[in-house]
């Protein structure tokens, strides 16, 4: 278990308070502020590192990440539809959540690697931004096909102009422009305080996650299984692709975490608009209540050891 990390303890603290039904949460504006800070920090960190890399180097990685995000829902969908016996809309919507990524999980993976002094490619935030959207398109495609009725303009708006994506993209661009020396003056808030901000964020996430678990009801057993096994399977794909891209063990761990994590901000909002007949409770309860909790507590260290093994087996 990933338990000695103070950030994880904050998360567990939130979960326990939520389970005890103690009425406590960050004020809405503070939560929004913490989220914005986290998104900008992640973007900035990635952007500063990207300024050292060439586009020619990044291009194959970008294309591979986009393809992975688009294809993961096509693996999740048949499992949900035929094993889980969910409706077409619910299967497509849940599948989209699992193809997309979670910023919180990514941040915990970064913090985990740093606390263990494991080196990783610092431009991984770029993949976090890239992986938000393709799964949304895949989910809508699964639910609707190439139907004439699909309002693609709206769909693209929902998929690519989500607030979270814009904030990270803004951070990436600013970081890329200013580079390491320019970043010095904004370092105290955006870089040095990263773990403290993340701790606050995870405290709130613990509260929210524990409030979601109770809403699973009828499909609880299947979704608990799916919410744990699907990320484990996706992480294997992520590790293998990371290895193929030539990433370090730390980089492979993050790529696996990205593949394994499920969205609970951008995708739910987009699905609500694009596939309104899908039940949002199912997808959020499993992506946040189960998969996020699993990834934060157990998944990330597991993906790290998986990355180590694959690295050795494939003789890198």
């Amino acid at each position, binding site marked *: 278990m990933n338990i000695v990390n103070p950030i994880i303890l904050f998360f567990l603290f939130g979960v326990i308070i939520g389970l005890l039904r103690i009425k406590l949460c960050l004020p*809405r504006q503070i939560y929004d502020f913490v989220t914005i800070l986290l998104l900008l920090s992640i973007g900035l960190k990635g952007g500063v590192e990207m300024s050292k890399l060439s586009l020619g180097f990044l291009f194959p990685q970008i294309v591979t990440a986009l393809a992975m995000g688009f294809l993961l829902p096509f693996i999740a969908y048949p499992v949900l539809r035929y094993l889980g016996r969910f409706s077409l809309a619910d299967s497509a919507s849940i599948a989209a959540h699992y193809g997309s990524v979670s910023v919180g999980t990514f941040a915990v993976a970064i913090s985990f690697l740093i606390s263990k002094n494991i080196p990783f490619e610092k431009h991984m935030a770029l993949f976090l931004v890239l992986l938000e959207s393709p799964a949304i398109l895949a989910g809508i495609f699964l639910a609707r096909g190439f139907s004439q009725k699909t309002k693609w303009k709206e769909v693209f708006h929902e998929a690519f102009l989500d607030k979270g994506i814009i904030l990270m993209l803004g951070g990436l661009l600013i970081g890329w422009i200013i580079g390491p020396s320019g970043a010095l003056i904004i370092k105290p808030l955006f870089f040095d305080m990263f773990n403290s901000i993340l701790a606050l964020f995870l405290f*709130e996430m613990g509260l929210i996650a524990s*409030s979601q678990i109770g809403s699973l009801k009828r499909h609880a057993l299947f979704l608990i299984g799916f919410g744990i096994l699907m990320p484990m399977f996706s992480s294997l794909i992520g590790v293998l692709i990371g290895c193929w891209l030539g990433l370090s063990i730390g980089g492979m761990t993050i790529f696996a975490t990205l593949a394994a994590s499920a969205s609970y901000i951008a995708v739910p909002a987009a699905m609500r*608009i694009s596939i*309104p007949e899908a039940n*949002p409770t199912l997808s959020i309860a499993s992506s946040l209540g189960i998969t996020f909790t699993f990834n934060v507590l157990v998944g990330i260290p597991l993906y790290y050891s998986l990355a180590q093994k694959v690295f050795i087996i494939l003789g890198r």
Partner: protein
Amino acid sequence: MDFYKEKLLTVITESEIEEHLVEDFDKLGAKGYTISLARGKGEKGIRNAIWSSNSNIKIEIICCPKVCEKIVEFLKANYLKNYAMILFVADVDVLRPSKF
């Protein structure tokens, strides 16, 4: 004082569809609206607004009966089935009917 009769349409629904609804209302002829954050409990469970996917909004529109009916019909056709949405209409007295 002279008062004029208008309709007050109140819609309580998911905050995620706010932008789309507002666009629809404009197109259907509403001259204005007031939106506030809301929380509570209904058929779709407790919506306590601790984060965005779980929060509600309350939209209040004062308009003439014709526009009110148009909006209600539109919401019935497009939103009531799939979204957490409650709507009700009340008669209200206003001072300046030209504003609505």
